[in-house]
């Protein structure tokens, strides 16, 4: 459903409340959980960028890891090798992955279904192999570390070496881009993406250049995945070739399916639940992935629209 009225006020209220909650959280939890939450925010951004291409446009891309990794490398290499400041390197972690997404998308969006899935995996694998072998530039599987300078915006400045500063920094950017994506989904462009997901043939017949719009969605998603990668490496002050591995895309797939695809809040909730689950389970057993896998299978069978879909249908019934 893409045309809904009268929910703006409710949304703003909930959004502001959650944001306020997250702003005061660091005063109540220790550094470990602050880092945990910072990483969670990054994965939320990654998951919603994936949902733009999967949940809204209907293309299952396993190639998002490539753009995530490229964003991470953009930030790391610009700061470490070229001495760029933090602001500019993070800013560039959007357009550089976008250029690659344009290239990958140019070949991929012509394909549909399983062929699209496979070609995006292949591109991510190629990226991973290059990252692994070109060690002089990428650090290979050992990776690269760096120390970013404080992020400056006018008089405003945040020290990213400080965990709490880093937390607020990532929270602010993810919140901004959450709103950005929400607005885009409500725009005419978003309606076209949804139409394509619902029926490509019909969209084409009423005059939408389906391949062009798929490419646009893919490029935007690529840019946002890149930004998520850039934030991730800023948080960990580290990047490695494994960031490019296609299985990284799998995180976004799992979060989105568990939370509910085709919504923005779904992947965010999914990321929160799965990451918390993994975090608590690791105390008791090593095979956390196994449990996550079982949860995933359960969700796909019992609630294909994810938790959000489950809650929505409960609401409707009574």
């Amino acid at each position, binding site marked *: *459903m893409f045309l809904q009225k009268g929910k703006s006020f409710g949304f703003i209220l909930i959004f502001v409340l959650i944001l306020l909650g997250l702003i005061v959280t660091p005063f109540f939890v220790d550094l470990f959980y602050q880092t945990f939450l910072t990483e969670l925010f990054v994965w939320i951004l990654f998951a919603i960028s994936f949902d733009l291409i999967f949940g809204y446009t209907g293309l299952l891309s396993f190639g998002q890891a490539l753009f995530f990794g490229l964003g991470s490398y953009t930030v790391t290499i610009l700061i470490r090798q070229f001495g760029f400041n933090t602001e500019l390197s993070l800013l560039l972690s959007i357009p550089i992955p976008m250029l690659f997404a344009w290239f990958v998308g140019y070949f991929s969006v012509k394909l549909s279904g399983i062929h699209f899935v496979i070609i995006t995996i292949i591109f991510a694998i190629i990226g991973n192999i290059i990252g692994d072998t070109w060690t002089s530039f990428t650090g290979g599987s050992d990776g690269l570390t760096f120390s970013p300078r404080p992020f400056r915006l006018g008089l405003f400045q945040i020290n990213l070496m400080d965990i709490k500063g880093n937390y607020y920094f990532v929270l602010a950017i993810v919140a901004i881009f959450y709103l950005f994506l929400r*607005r885009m989904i409500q725009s005419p462009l978003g309606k076209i993406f949804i139409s394509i997901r619902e*029926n490509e043939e019909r969209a*084409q*017949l009423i005059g*939408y250049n389906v391949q062009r719009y798929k490419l646009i969605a893919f490029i935007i998603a690529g840019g946002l995945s890149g930004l998520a990668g850039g934030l991730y490496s800023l948080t960990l002050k580290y990047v490695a070739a494994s960031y490019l591995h296609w299985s990284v895309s799998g995180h976004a797939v799992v979060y989105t399916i568990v939370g509910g695809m085709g919504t923005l809040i779904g992947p965010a909730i999914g990321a929160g639940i799965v990451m918390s689950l993994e975090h608590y389970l690791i105390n008791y057993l090593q095979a956390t992935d196994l449990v996550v896998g079982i949860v995933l299978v359960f969700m796909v069978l019992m609630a294909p629209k994810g938790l959000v879909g489950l809650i929505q249908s409960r609401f409707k019934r009574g």
Partner: protein
Amino acid sequence: MPEANEIILELKEVNKSFGGLLAVSKVNLSVSKGELRALIGPNGAGKTTLLNLITGTLRASSGKIFFKDKEITHLHSYQISHRGISRTMQITSLFSGLTVFENIWAAVQSRKKFFNPFVRALKWQDVKEKTESMLELTGFKDKAHLICSELSYGNQRILEMGIALSTEPDLLLLDEPTAGLNSQESMVLVKKMRSMLSGQTIILVEHDMGVVMELADNISVLHYGAILAEGPPKEIKENEEVKKVYLGSEHA
């Protein structure tokens, strides 16, 4: 009947082959503005293929197609849509997970250019008004917020026509609108079509001869991909060759 014979669509020597099979062979066809042209013929005669060639879903192997005096033979289907040709499918093709309102909206919106991706779609007053007037015309005003897969099959067929009409086409192609409907539902649909589509230039592919005879201004008969006969319904009814290959004795 249309005033003057202003030709809107013209097919010249159009061929389409799939491997060795000639699905459409040397078809010449002209449709005038305001005309309702029926396309009839046995199964596999190439009727749907012909529509697919006109809308750019398939490319002609040879020959040329002109629409409003401009060649459209090699255009993509979304481009042809913007030139003013719209269609419905033999198997209903809707945005099935969306509401009736959203289905029509998507089609209305397609006529609009936009440069600001951050405008809220719902703030487009003109699109909204046009969508609402289309809902009125198609009779879906009180069903606007139903998910369209919840509609009855007959209503889905009507909705698809509404979507096709919402792009404001100069030529509308209807591929077996009564397929899968019982005779009563067909009657309702025909009645609806009369009120919805008056004045519209239409090519109608249809098996139900009652519907064809009632609606068509002219009929073209396709047989093995070639045009066998062409003329007003009365003439076609009495054409011996047509009787032999298609209408058979029970219709004669």
